[in-house]
């Protein structure tokens, strides 16, 4: 085969078979980001590692030539025949074969799926150096970096050895030179043009948000909400020790949310103008006036949910009531973590009436308040059923009908399916709550018995009062005055023939059965 300067062999050293790299990195969110980042005409693009067709198509639309490096023979075969040059093999093999560097290098999948078992034991900086060596001076390079200090990893309840698959023939995460923070990654790469916190469940990018923006956000603010939605997606299938929400909020409070993100996307070299965040629903920008989400400007302020949690924890029901009334007066209602300073973000559920949406929002708030074992002043007999939602809906000025409660529940169940498995802390807290419930029910029984004892005493008092009255009556009847009055009465009856006849008749009836 004739090989020109730019022509690469279909296979280079280090390919693997049989092998498949599951879950290639990609998705429309990443494609939208790359569309902004890359110039309209990008020259030659190298996509290193497994990436999905969203990414490859985008690359193809911007470049005269797209080269895709895949270590799996079968993955490469499946991709051949399209508009890309597919090279099968390992990064080290490609580095030896490439003579002309690329204008753009995309390794959003990271540097962990670029070598084979036959490759040399290159550590992370060596792999990074090899990759960067494939890029021309002034090229744009995009690299995915996994965060070893991610909150998702810290709270993963599996032992470290059980978290990774067959591709850890060498323990990649035991690499002492592997960057464990964004600063270390940037130091290893020699500085970055831009960095985004990356949330990618099963490597399909769900959310990206600029590291600066997420590092400056606070709990309940739109930036934190965007990140927490990404975290929720990321952890939906991860067995956890504790919910990531609490830890992530603590990190946000400390300005460290970017530090504990699951990973980053680091951009080196020239870059097009990008948005502050990329979400499943579209892009978002943090401006001086707040977050621009689609056509709506949302204040960079705490969410209604955060404020309500605070009122509940402080057991400040009047404050809660007043805030609920203001929420009820809004024209646009959303879930309360999507309302900031009484402005609903446009990514709220739509197509429902305001009352239905309010019912759904209160159901969702109840689920979070009770499910997360947060502090509040309402008794368990209200928390167990729909009483809380009814109470809060009424506070918002909406009559809590049975239908409304039902519709609200349906909206929430559709939007937020229950977690596949509860985290360990929730399981322990649930068990403790169950123990407390048993104790309190026993207390309730004691209380009922105590009440019965009081009531028994009350009955005894009344009984004694009745006995005393009866004795008094008896004594009264036995008195001379009553006896005289009785005789006088009888005499009076004898003197009145009609009354006498009536009395005789009355007595006679007792001896005449069947007569009324």
């Amino acid at each position, binding site marked *: 085969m004739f090989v020109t300067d730019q022509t690469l062999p279909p296979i280079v050293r280090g390919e693997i078979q049989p092998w498949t790299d599951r879950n290639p990195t990609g998705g429309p969110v990443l494609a939208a980001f790359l569309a902004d980042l890359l110039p309209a005409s990008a020259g030659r693009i190298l996509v290193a590692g497994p990436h999905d067709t969203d990414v490859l198509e985008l690359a193809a639309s911007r470049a005269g030539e797209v080269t895709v490096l895949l270590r799996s023979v079968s993955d490469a075969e499946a991709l051949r025949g399209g508009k890309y040059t597919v090279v099968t093999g390992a990064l080290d093999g490609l580095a030896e074969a490439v003579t002309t560097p690329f204008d753009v290098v995309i390794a959003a999948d990271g540097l962990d799926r670029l070598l084979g078992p036959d490759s040399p034991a290159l550590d992370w900086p060596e792999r990074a150096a090899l990759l960067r060596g494939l890029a021309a001076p002034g090229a744009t390079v995009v690299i995915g970096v996994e965060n070893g200090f991610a909150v998702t990893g810290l709270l993963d309840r599996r032992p470290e050895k059980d978290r990774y698959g067959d591709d850890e023939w060498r323990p990649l995460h035991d690499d002492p030179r592997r960057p464990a923070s964004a600063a270390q990654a940037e130091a290893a790469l020699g500085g970055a043009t831009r960095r985004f916190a990356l949330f990618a469940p099963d490597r399909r990018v769900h959310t990206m948000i600029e590291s600066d923006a997420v590092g400056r956000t606070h709990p309940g603010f739109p930036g934190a909400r965007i990140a927490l939605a990404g975290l929720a997606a990321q952890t939906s299938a991860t067995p956890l020790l504790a919910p990531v929400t609490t830890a992530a909020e603590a990190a946000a409070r400390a300005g460290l949310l970017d530090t504990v993100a699951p990973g980053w996307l680091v951009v080196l070299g020239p870059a097009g103008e990008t948005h502050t965040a990329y979400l499943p629903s579209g892009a978002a920008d943090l401006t001086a006036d707040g977050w621009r989400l689609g056509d709506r400007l949302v204040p960079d302020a705490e969410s209604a949910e955060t404020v309500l949690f605070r009122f509940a924890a402080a*057991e400040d029901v009047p404050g809660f009531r007043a805030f609920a009334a203001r929420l009820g007066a809004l024209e646009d209602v959303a879930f309360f973590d999507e309302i900031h300073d009484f402005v609903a973000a446009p990514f709220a559920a739509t197509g429902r009436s305001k009352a239905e949406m309010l019912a759904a929002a209160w159901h969702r708030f109840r689920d979070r308040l009770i499910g997360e074992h947060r502090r509040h*002043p309402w008794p368990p007999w209200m928390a167990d059923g729909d009483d809380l939602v009814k109470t809060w809906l009424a506070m918002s000025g909406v009559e809590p009908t049975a239908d409304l409660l039902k519709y609200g529940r349906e909206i929430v169940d559709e939007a937020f399916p229950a977690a596949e498995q509860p985290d360990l802390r929730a399981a322990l807290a649930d068990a403790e709550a169950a123990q407390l419930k048993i104790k309190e029910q*026993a*207390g309730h029984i*004691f209380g009922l018995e105590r009440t019965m004892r009081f009531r028994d005493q*009350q009955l005894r008092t*009344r009984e004694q009062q009745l006995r005393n009255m009866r004795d008094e009556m008896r004594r009264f009847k036995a008195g001379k005055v009553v006896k005289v009055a009785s005789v006088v009465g009888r005499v009076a009856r004898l003197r009145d023939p009609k009354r006498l006849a009536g009395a005789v008749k009355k007595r006679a009836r007792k001896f005449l059965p069947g007569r009324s």
Partner: protein
Amino acid sequence: MHHHNHYYGQAHILARYCGLNDLHPPRMRGYLQHGWNVACGWNPVHEFFDGAWRYTWSDPPRRRGHSLGRRNYHVIGAPFLYLADMEPDLGKVPEEERSGTLWFLFHGWEGGGKGGKIEGDHARLISEIKETETEQVTISLYYTEFERPEVRRAYEKAGFEVICFGKRGWNYEGTDRRFLYKQLETFRRFKRVAANRLSTAIFFGTAVGCQPAVYGDPMELEGDNPLFGGQARIKRLWPEMHGKDVDLAAARATTDVELGRSYVMPPAELRMLFDWNVRD
């Protein structure tokens, strides 16, 4: 339900507010604060059973209870406020026709064999009342003092009208369920309410438009529990409520806090809170 919940007919008032039978109010799933309280809402030796809720008038007792390791509080506002809302016209006279001082002597309690009598110099207190009040004075005695002739006669001899609003009851017996109705009706024709200790009556009177005053010998209560911190603590915490001529705006603001005015809730909410709805 603890029998204290029936004291002064408070449970009856709340049952009526909730649209339920106020002659025989339903059982309440917890304890209802029955008087203004400088501690956690109840006396220091009050029994509580697990899982019972503590319904206080205001937030300060909840906070103090929390510091004592007690939980399960819900602030509901004083039942007297609910009554005043339900009876806007009871005893009402034009503002300019309100006159005189309704004067509450600090009262003892039933005791239950542990004391409960008050001791003090009534003659000296009477002199001070006469020196201070410029209009007619009606002395209100709780039945524990009203039934002590030596106390009652001292005030009658001084020329005061002496009244008693009735009994709060014990073990569901003897509760005058119109107790607070009578108080409300009476307060509304007086210009001033006064007492020798800051007490529930001062707050109730202030809540319905009386000018409050707290002065004179606070007297001693037999078996008084020092855990409450005594009169000195009360003066430290509520100086604005003490004196013969207190600032009315400040007194009203404090009264709203101590009676939990902002915590008053709608009937439907109260029914759920007390577990008063019929369950299937």
